[in-house]
Structure formats: C-alpha cells, structure tokens
C-alpha cells in the first residue's frame, strides 16, 4: 500500500520533469544558500568572538564591582592571589592572568599622548592573550624586566619612538599621588586594531604596582575557559565561590565586557534574517505554484480517482507525498551542495578586499572562514523543510474541498 502510493507520487513528480526539476532546484538552492550563509555567520561570529576574546577580554573577568563602568583606579581586586587560587580550581577554567591599568600621559622627547598603561603578568599573559605574538619589533616582556614597556605601533609612530628609546608615563596613583616614571621601549606590537595600537602601553605588573602605588591590588583577573560554551557555567560557579574569598567582586563575561561586539553580531543576524526571509518566500512561492498548477492540470484525474471511490483525503495525501519527494530530493541536494561549498571555503577562506577597515575594528583577519556545523546544516535544511511544508498546505486543502461532480464535469 505504502509503496504503491509512494511509487505513484514518485511518477507524478516526474510527469513534468522540467517544472519539478526547477522546483527541486529552487529548494536545493535555498538549502545551499542557507547552509553556507549560516555556516558563514556562525563561523565569522566565532572568529570575531575568539579574536576579540584573545586580544582583549578573555572569556570572563573578575573585577571590583563598578570598575567596568567607572574605571577608577581605586576599584581593585584586593587579594588577586587568593582569588586566582579559587579561579584555578574552578572546573572549566583553562588559565588566567591579572591586569591593572591606568589612563596616563605618555611622552617622548617632543610629543605627548594620552594612553592606557596596562600592567601585565609577563609569565601568564601569553597563555591568555595573543599579545606576545603581536610583537613586531623588539621582544615581549619578561618578569624581571623592571621599567620596560611594550608599545602599540601607531603610538610609537606618533611619539616618534622605537625600541630602546625612553618614554615617560605620567598619571595618578591609587593613593591619589602623582605617578610618574620613565620606561624603556622593549617591543612594538601591532594588533591591526588601530584603536588598540594607538593608545596602549604595557609594562610588567611589578613595575605597575610600584609606579601606581597599587598595594597589591589589580583591576582585572582575566579568565580563559576551556571553550566558549563552558563560559556560562564557569561564570555561575565563580559567582557563587568568589564572595567567600573577597567581597565586592563581580564576574563579567565577554558579552558584558564587549557590548559592541554583541550588538554587531545581532545586527548581522538581523540583516541575514531579512535576506533569508526573502529567499524563503521565493522557495515557498515556487512550491505553491508547482502544486497549484499540478492540481489545476490534474482535476480530471482527481475526478476519476474520486469516481473510483478514492477520497479527497487520500488524494490530498498523495499531493503531500509528491511534495515530500520533491522537497526531500531538493533538500538532500541542497545539503550536499551546501556542505561541499562550505567545506571548500572552510579550507580556502574568503578574502575581503575593501572591508579591512571594519574587520580590523574587531581584530579580524582579512581572510575569513565559514564553519560547517551540525547546527548550520540542520537549521538550513530544517527551515526549508518547514517552509515547503507550509507552502503545500494550501494546495492540499484545496484538494480536500474537491467535490466529485466538479472534478468529473471537466471530463467530457
């Protein structure tokens, strides 16, 4: 019984091969585009998040409450070692480092610029961020470096300094005193993010503690989790254990630390969504058209079936089976093609000439890669399936309302 009906549906699909192939091609095309685009979006979000996380924020940060908004030098984690011990023991944490920072004036012999001076842990920092690999000239800091500094390429250019030159930092210490010190440029880094390269100086944490009179306090304890997915769980664990170590601390995740990034991802999702809606409408109309045409053309045949004792319900199911065959073939082709195209670009990447500026803002490479995942493949295929199922409802309902005499009166 089943096989007879499916066989009949199969043959009906091939009655008008050109129309069916076109319909299936539009389903396949939509599947292909959806899978590729979703893979692309998810892939680029991952790249964006990972690079932003690895240059700047880490996955999570432990900070004094209010520091993220006010950035006052006195808002510190007082006992970073004790906090670090807890962090290290927390499940899902990969590694961590500490940072402290202060806005200061940075001067060379004949120029002065405002910059963020960051105290970093030269031993731990390379495991957390890509900073070490960004050093283009000179070398990265070592723990016993004393008063030496890394400086962004654009800031170096503005100050007209190079490796080995001396710069002077002038700011305010934690105690309100004037913090001033000369440091020697040990290395110049270039992240590609102009803002970062124009306004950042890194010095060893030990030097920072002395210059800014931090009394052991740090501003950020930067945490890297085992994966992006484990971030929420780690955040929750830390939020419950930290109050036992030190009061007044908060755990912020990368979304809270970089609201701009989250926003631009949302914008991208929305603009993608609009495109998908248009694409999906095209497919829906193509399915709708195919089946309305088929019903119109096959009215006589349906009349014969009804005269033989078949029911509108059965004929309607046959239409659904035909739609199922077409959609199934279309989606299968779409998944195969979509996966193939995605995998090709996953291997070769796509270069964005002209968009470097925007990409740089997020520290993104000029070549980006889609990322085929079960999610992007199934969401793409699922959405197409859903839409075609919707599109065939109307034709199927029209068949349900078919009265034998109306269908039969076309036979004469």
């Amino acid at each position: 019984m089943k096989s007879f009906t499916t066989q009949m549906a199969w043959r009906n699909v091939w009655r008008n091969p050109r129309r069916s192939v076109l319909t299936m091609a539009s389903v396949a095309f939509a599947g292909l585009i959806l899978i590729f685009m979703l893979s692309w979006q998810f892939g680029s979000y991952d790249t964006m998040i990972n690079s932003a996380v690895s240059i700047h924020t880490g996955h999570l940060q432990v900070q004094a409450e209010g520091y993220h908004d006010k950035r006052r030098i006195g808002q510190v984690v007082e006992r970073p070692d004790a906090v670090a011990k807890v962090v290290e023991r927390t499940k899902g944490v990969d590694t961590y480092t500490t940072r402290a920072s202060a806005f200061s004036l940075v001067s060379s012999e004949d120029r002065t610029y405002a910059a963020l001076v960051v105290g970093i842990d030269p031993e731990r920092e390379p495991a957390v961020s890509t900073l070490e690999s960004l050093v283009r000239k000179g070398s990265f800091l070592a723990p016993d470096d004393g008063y030496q500094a890394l400086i962004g390429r654009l800031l170096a250019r503005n100050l007209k300094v190079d490796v080995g030159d001396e710069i002077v930092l002038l700011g305010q210490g934690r105690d309100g005193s004037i913090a001033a010190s000369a440091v020697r440029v040990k290395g110049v880094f270039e992240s590609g993010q102009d803002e970062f390269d124009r306004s950042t100086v890194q010095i060893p944490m030990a030097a920072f503690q002395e210059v800014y009179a931090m009394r052991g306090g740090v501003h950020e304890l930067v945490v890297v989790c085992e994966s992006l997915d484990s971030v929420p769980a780690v955040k929750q664990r830390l939020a419950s254990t930290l109050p036992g170590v030190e009061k007044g601390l908060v755990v912020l995740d990368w979304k809270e630390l970089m609201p701009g990034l989250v926003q631009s991802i949302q914008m991208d999702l929305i603009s993608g969504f609009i495109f998908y809606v248009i694409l999906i409408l095209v497919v829906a109309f193509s399915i709708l058209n195919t089946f309305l045409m088929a019903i119109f053309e096959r009215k006589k045949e349906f009349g014969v079936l009804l005269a033989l004792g078949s029911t509108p319900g059965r004929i309607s199911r046959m239409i659904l089976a035909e739609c199922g065959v077409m959609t199934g073939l279309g989606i299968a082709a779409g998944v195969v093609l979509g996966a193939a195209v995605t995998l090709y670009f996953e291997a070769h990447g796509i270069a964005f000439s002209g968009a470097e500026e925007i990409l740089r803002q997020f520290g993104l490479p000029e070549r980006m890669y889609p990322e085929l995942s079960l999610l992007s493949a199934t969401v793409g295929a699922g959405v197409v399936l859903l839409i075609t199922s919707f599109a065939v409802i109307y034709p199927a309902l029209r068949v349900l309302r078919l009265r034998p005499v109306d269908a039969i009166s076309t036979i004469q």
Partner: protein
Amino acid sequence: METQSIVSLSDVTKTYRQGRVQITALDGVSLEVPQGDFLALAGPSGSGKTTLLNLIGGLDRADSGSIRLNGNDLGAMSESELAGMRLEQVGFVFQSYNLIPVLSAEENVEYVMLLQGVAARERREKARAILDDVGLEGMYDRRPAELSGGQQQRVAVARAVVSGPSIVLADEPTANLDSATGRALMDMMRSMNEAKGVTFVFSTHDRMVMDYAGRLIRIRDGRVAGDERREGEAES
C-alpha cells in the same frame, strides 16, 4: 418489480444554476434497474444523460426525489459514505480520460482493489485475468499513452468490473472511438453482461450502440420519454 432492483429512482429532479439562469437537467425521473440489465440511456446532447448517471453513481446529489442503490438512500449518505459506496458497488467508465496516466494498465485496474484493501498478490492475479478477458493480454505494463483509444476504454471497463460491482455506469463509452472499435467494445461489455451478469447502464446517442441494448430508455429534456425491452437484437 419481480426481481430486486439495483437502482431505484423516484421523481428525481436536478436543476443547475448558472448565474441567474436555471437549467432543469432532470425533471421528475422515475426508473427501476433490475439486476442483469444491459440498459442504454438514449437521447440527444443536453437531454440529461450524464446528470442522471452522476446521480445514480453518487457523484452528485438530486434536488428532490429519491435515489436508492441496493435499497440504500443516497440522499441520506455523507460524502465519505458515498465514496465508500462508489468503491464497493459502482464501476464508472467515462467517455475519455479514464485512466491514471502514471499507472500501467495493470496498475490502473489494481488501483480500485488497492483502495478496497485487497492483498497485492490477489490484486495482480485478478487484474491480469480481467485484462486477458478484455483482450489485453501482454499489455499489462503499458501506460495509457502507449495504448490506443479502444484499448484504453477496455482497460476502463476491466477496471470498472474487476471487483464485482452491483452496477457499471458508462457515459458515452464509445463516443471517442471509430465505429469498428466501438462495436468491439460493446461486444465485450455485452459478453461481460451475459457471462457474469454484470449490470450495465450506458448512455449514448449513437444508433449502433442503442442496438446493443437489452433495454432502451429514451431521455428528452430531462424526462423519460420511452422505455422498451428489446431482446436478441444485438449482432456481432
């Protein structure tokens, strides 16, 4: 009414509305069709033959009067009961476009049995046997497009009789055939009637076809204008 009637119509009327115009297609038709009849409905085009056949087969409903098939009042049946009734008790043959184009001759015949829930093996045996009976042995796998008009009508008749319906309704079955092929089809229907006792009601306006009828009912303007039994007039 010595034998039990398969079909029994009493004072049946049917009016079509086309915009503001009302067309009376049937105007008080009463009729008994006993088991085994080979009955021709004869009348000019537009006299109401098709309408009458559609009403008897439960494809459409009468405006007034009653139609009984094997004693059951069609007017009281739901659409799905009518579909079930058509499936089990009525065979249809139309003037043209009888066969499902994607199904082979054998599958077309099998289709009714499939709906009835007959097992695959039995379907196949019965379908082939009846196709042999109508002279289509060896053409089981041909699609309608690969059959001549006469052959297609034979498949339609085979399909109509295969599961032993109470009555076969044929609406101008020979109208699209040349006269020799038409004769052959009528011969075949006649022999089905004689050998298996299948009751046939067919419409025609062709004198040659009327000559095959065991009983001839003349229809004029939606009324019965004559009802005669004619024995042994068919020639082969």
